[in-house]
């Protein structure tokens, strides 16, 4: 972003804070406008914080001294909280990621892709994580925007024995394969996926290999499968 644009946005935000919303709405370039809106949200939040003098807990980081990309992340969290107050789990979110509930994930993802302040047009990666043999599974989405050049990480956790997450295949096409891979390794079912089946492993493989409690099947088509640890030692 050039200094010129930053200046423009700053001016607009100041005017908007004084009550003149048209200053932002009159910006012609869509991208700049959305940036200005994001900046406005941030400014308003800071103002609110100063007023209420809330004791800042661990998760609401003072944004003055964090790095640029993290601030953007915060902004997006703020936007999401405004739009979907029930779905964001604030306590579990940090400056690096946003924890959300799986129920409305499809709507949220659509919002993330289409909202001018977010425009996350590219789904970088879907990572499945097993949080431990007794705990839940988690799906982590790394999103990136080619327009704003910012990134965000979304985390959704799901129950181990009833792992279900809405599919974002219709939002980002690459979701198709990434979700199949996560399903393949963790057995997380992505609801609404057209053709959810194993991708890297054979279709008749048993179990979900990257879960921490995975037990290798004894034989596969009559071939004895060596146990992982035995293979190592």
């Amino acid at each position, binding site marked *: 972003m050039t200094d010129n644009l930053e200046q423009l946005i700053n001016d607009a935000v100041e005017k908007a804070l004084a009550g003149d919303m048209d200053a932002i709405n009159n910006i012609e370039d869509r991208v700049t406008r959305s940036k200005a809106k994001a900046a406005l949200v941030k400014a308003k939040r800071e103002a609110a914080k100063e007023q209420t003098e809330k004791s800042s807990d661990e998760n609401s980081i003072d944004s003055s001294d964090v790095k640029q990309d993290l601030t953007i992340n915060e902004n997006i969290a703020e936007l999401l909280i405004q739009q979907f107050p029930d779905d964001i789990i604030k306590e579990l979110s940090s400056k690096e990621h946003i924890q959300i509930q799986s129920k409305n994930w499809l709507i949220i993802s659509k919002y993330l892709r289409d909202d001018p302040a977010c425009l996350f047009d590219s789904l*970088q990666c879907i990572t499945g*994580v097993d949080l431990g043999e007794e705990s839940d599974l988690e799906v982590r989405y*790394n999103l990136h925007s080619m327009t704003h050049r910012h990134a965000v990480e979304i985390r959704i956790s799901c129950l181990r024995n009833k792992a279900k997450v809405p599919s974002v295949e219709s939002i980002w*096409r*690459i979701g198709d*394969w990434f979700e199949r891979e996560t399903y393949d390794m963790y057995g997380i079912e992505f609801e609404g996926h057209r053709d959810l089946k194993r991708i890297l492993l054979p279709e008749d493989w048993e179990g979900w290999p*990257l879960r921490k409690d995975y037990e290798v099947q004894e034989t596969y088509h009559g071939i004895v499968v060596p146990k*992982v640890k035995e293979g190592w030692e």
Partner: protein
Amino acid sequence: MGIVKGDQMVLNIGPQHPSTHGVLRLKVVTDGEIVSDIEPIIGYLHRCFEKHCENSTYEQVIPFTDRCDYIASMNNNFGYVVAMEKLMEIKVPDRVEYIRIIMAELNRIASHLLALGVYGLDVGAFTPFLYMFRDRERILDIFELTCGARLLYNYMWVGGVSHDLPVGFVETVYGFLDYFEPKLKEYNEILTYNKIFIERTADVGVLPPEVAISYGVSGPNLRGSGVKWDLRKDEPYSIYERFDFEVPVGEGTVGTTGDCWDRFYVRMLEMIESAKILRQALKNLPQDGDVHQAIPKKIRPPKGSIYQRTESPRGDLAYYIISDGSPEPYRLKMRSPAFTALSVLNEISRGWMLSDVIAILGSLDIVLGEIDR
């Protein structure tokens, strides 16, 4: 194309087939010569990379990354060590950074040479393939000189590199560059501007930028569609911000932007840019400095996770590393650029002919080792 609908036939291309670039199987539904649907079936080369990583220490992961994209092992090492160093907040000496850049760019040239040569083979030109392999051999010789290995290097370590540069290395690389740069003209003459080659690749398999982004296609394939996005420039890691180079994009010179020819030619231009970076790096390479200085005794990153992207020859290579404070990664996920590139195949090759599918597949430059992991 494909106005008349006849009976459809299912054709299995691969896993053993001359031009599937490894062990890929394509389930192709054809109507005569015209392809109406493709389902790539992968996993024939699955070696449980991510499961292995959870059972080995952080150092032991590096040789596994070699074996993912075996055409550009240096770049895979690079991505991993950059991620690890960011996670552990290690600052590596300048000399190490320069050595890494030199190796990564050399490997990028080698990888592109292989991709372009094999692409020639895919469309039936045998000779450019041998020309490019002849020159790739020189790069492999340089790697052999440096670390003793020609394909799987295990060269970059967390905090440093395994060996310092050998005596006479800089001169050898200069010699290679002086030899290599004029050769690009030869490649262009025999392949790039060949009339038949243009007929075969121009306007074929057009990948529009928005489709490319939605499919997560990255690297030269994305740039071939005219999107100026290169992590080395846009999100510089290591010391790439110190170098002056261009990001070539496809312009539809002989056809439509984003066709096979553009993807091919972007790689050709990238080799020139890599050579440029190499010359700058060789010029500024610090003369002394211990390459083992910053290597930690024990690799035990603090609790936390990192998602680090780097630009491999095939595109956006990322590692998602979750550490729980133990010497073994809790979870290590590799985001492979070839995986996303292959997923777009069905989208852009429906309606083309069987020969074009081979041409499109070749132009995406996939490496099955990286797709299947």
